[in-house]
């Protein structure tokens, strides 16, 4: 019966390949989930002398959205974020990643500003600390300053209603 071994091994392989069809090999889960949000003190967009830091948000639940004026996919999620910022209680803070302040401000004027404020990460260092590898990305940070969720790519209506809003509700309890 050892002649059935090749067939058996092959069917096992096929099982894994079939499972693989549903996965995305390029999606990189964040190792920062469950860890404290990396600290920074960046100048604010539009008011460069003022600084913002995650420490300022201790005790509150908030979202950090990584965006840029050169980012095409950001335009997909932007209307959703603008809408969200009008109705929800959770504030969105923007991390303007590797951008020119003039371009960034012009972009916000054109497409709307959902952010309580945005900080300028001109050289991308803070982005590296947050494990940013594509734009847009969105983080949900809880009252203790711990990252609880990372959205890779644009926020879609499904993600908003299925993942983000339930989590926010829970964290706000």
């Amino acid at each position: 019966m050892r002649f059935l071994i090749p067939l058996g091994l092959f069917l096992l392989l096929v099982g894994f390949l079939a499972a693989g069809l549903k996965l995305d090999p390029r999606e990189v889960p964040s190792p920062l989930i469950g860890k404290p949000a990396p600290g920074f003190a960046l100048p604010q967009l539009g008011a460069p002398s003022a600084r913002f830091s995650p420490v300022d948000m201790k005790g509150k639940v908030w979202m950090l959205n990584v965006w840029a004026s050169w980012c095409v996919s950001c335009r997909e999620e932007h209307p959703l974020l603008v809408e969200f910022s009008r109705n929800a209680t959770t504030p969105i803070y923007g991390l303007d990643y590797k951008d020119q302040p003039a371009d960034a401000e012009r972009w916000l004027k054109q497409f709307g500003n959902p952010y309580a404020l945005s900080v300028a990460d001109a050289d991308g260092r803070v982005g590296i600390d947050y494990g940013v590898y594509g734009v847009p990305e969105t983080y949900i940070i809880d009252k203790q300053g711990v990252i609880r969720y990372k959205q890779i790519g644009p926020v879609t209506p499904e993600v908003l209603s299925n993942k983000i809003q339930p989590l926010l509700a829970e964290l706000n309890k």
Partner: protein
Amino acid sequence: MIPELGHFALILALLVAAVQGVLPLVGAQRNSGAWMALARPAARTQFTMIVVAFACLTYAFVNDDFSVKYVFEHSNSQLPLVYRFAAVWGGHEGSLLLWMLMLSGWTFAVSLLSRTLPLAMVARVIAVLGLVSCGFLLFILLTSDPFERLLPVPADGADLNPLLQDPGLVIHPPMLYMGYVGFSVAFAFAIAALIAGQLDAAWARWSRPWTTAAWIFLTLGIALGSGWAYYTLGWGGWWFWDPVENASFMPWLVGTALIHSLAVTEKRGAFKNWTVLLAIGAFSLSLLGTFLVRSGVLTSVHAFATDPRRGIFVLVFLTLVIGSSLTLFAWRAPKVGLGGKFGLLSRETLLLTNNVLLLVAAASVLLGTLYPLLLDALGLAKLSVGPPYFQTVFVPLMAPLLFLIGLGPSSRWKQSEPAEMFKRVRFAIPFALIGGIVLPFAFGNWTPLIGLGLLLAVWIAAATALDIRRRFAAGGNIPRAFWGMHLAHIGIAVFVVGVTLVKGYETEKDVRMEPGDTVTAGSYSLRFLGVKPVPGPNYRSDMADIELSQDGRVLRVLNPEKRVFLSQEMPMTIAAIDAGPFRDIYVALGEPLAGGTTGAWSVRVHYKPFVDWIWGGCLLMALGGLLAASDRRYRVHAQVTAAGTEGVRA
């Protein structure tokens, strides 16, 4: 009109393939001469239909018919003619049509060159190939139709990916596919033998030249791909253990094991089950490669654009073909006889060890390539497995194999005496030691890996020379296969020298160059003269003039470029290479730099000793295979058929 004709030809081909796949097979079981006789004409007709389809697609490309979606996606009115031809297989749909062209072509070749084989065998082989063709044709017609129309008709095409606008595209895929698809013939022979319940030395003799031919093409295809990457990607690398590269390497490893195993089955009638399993394995890996490249399951620079529907189809097809083959194997294998007897130390056992090493190497490459998928599917982790893993694992597996290459020819069939073998190779030992210990110092410093590589390469060369000398001394006629074997083995030694010396002694310098600046590479001097804009047919280019000299004598001017294609705004680095038998000087242009006087650019200069020996070695391997496959015993049909052996079953 023409695209519809092409589409129709594909449908006809499918119908013919269905007939070809079923009737001769049933005919062979029932001993119906009429149905078996359908095999050859069906193969011919299918080939003709595929040629028509391929010609129609080529016509659409050459004539810029952008109403065909596939042409729109991969061509452009400014695209030079030669690349409009090659663009036919530049994307997924067209490459499948190329695959079909090769498959129907090989089947046609089998129908022509099989006069000495019993009709039942030919019928079964062609039928199996017909069934495989059905699968691919269905795949094309249902999910990947190259003749799909696009309305409204766009004014111009999206252009072929600039990286593909290169002579490499003209030759690498056809060679590679000839190899991949060629293993389907070995597969068909194996299945035919299993179905007939007739697995013997004669079967091995028939199967062997076809298998060797496929192996030759695959060797060349892989070498061409590596060479193309080397000069086109701009960073001087030639193998990245990328999933798609591995997908071509695994069938090669198993194919190599197969040609060695076939040698034993042909000579001694042994290893029959094992050889059949290898034949199924080699083609299975070809099919698996097709799946991996087109399904989106793995990330690769080489991957085609993906569509989950296609992935599912290929997986189902794969499962049916391989699953049924392995089931057939499990059913028939227990009944197969054992073949000749041989001792614990004999050529048979050494070849069996060769097989074990090659198979473990192939399994390791498969493990490394699929491991990220495995862990992700089990939800355990998200990992990458890259060159550091493969290099660490592959080299220790190959070293014993390289040693065996030197030892194998000195062994006898059936029973070999250790003392005799030692006597045959003992003079190779001092040469090998000199190669490993002393030779590196001729090139630079010594490291264990460099020493090992050179030791093994010289060992192979010396042992081969000794065997040739011994054979001459023994007198008598020396068959071509003997030369083929040794030439292929020398090819491996040359390859190992290339890899060892390049990895051991290559240098790379990243410099800022202003007009007049010089930089050294090895014993050469390169002077940057400046960069000028040069327009191309469908791109604009910044071309540098770099003077290459040695000992004060100017040898030539190199012209690395930075091209931006008008259709895609994607900058491409075109390296300038001065190739030589003992070294390559490889220059790539970086970016224009600010500061200092104007005209400063960043330039990367590589000195790559013996790098061309890598591909030279592959060429020698392929030539060796050609000699072996064209040995007299495979070409003696005239006398045999004259003797009326058409119905002989060995």
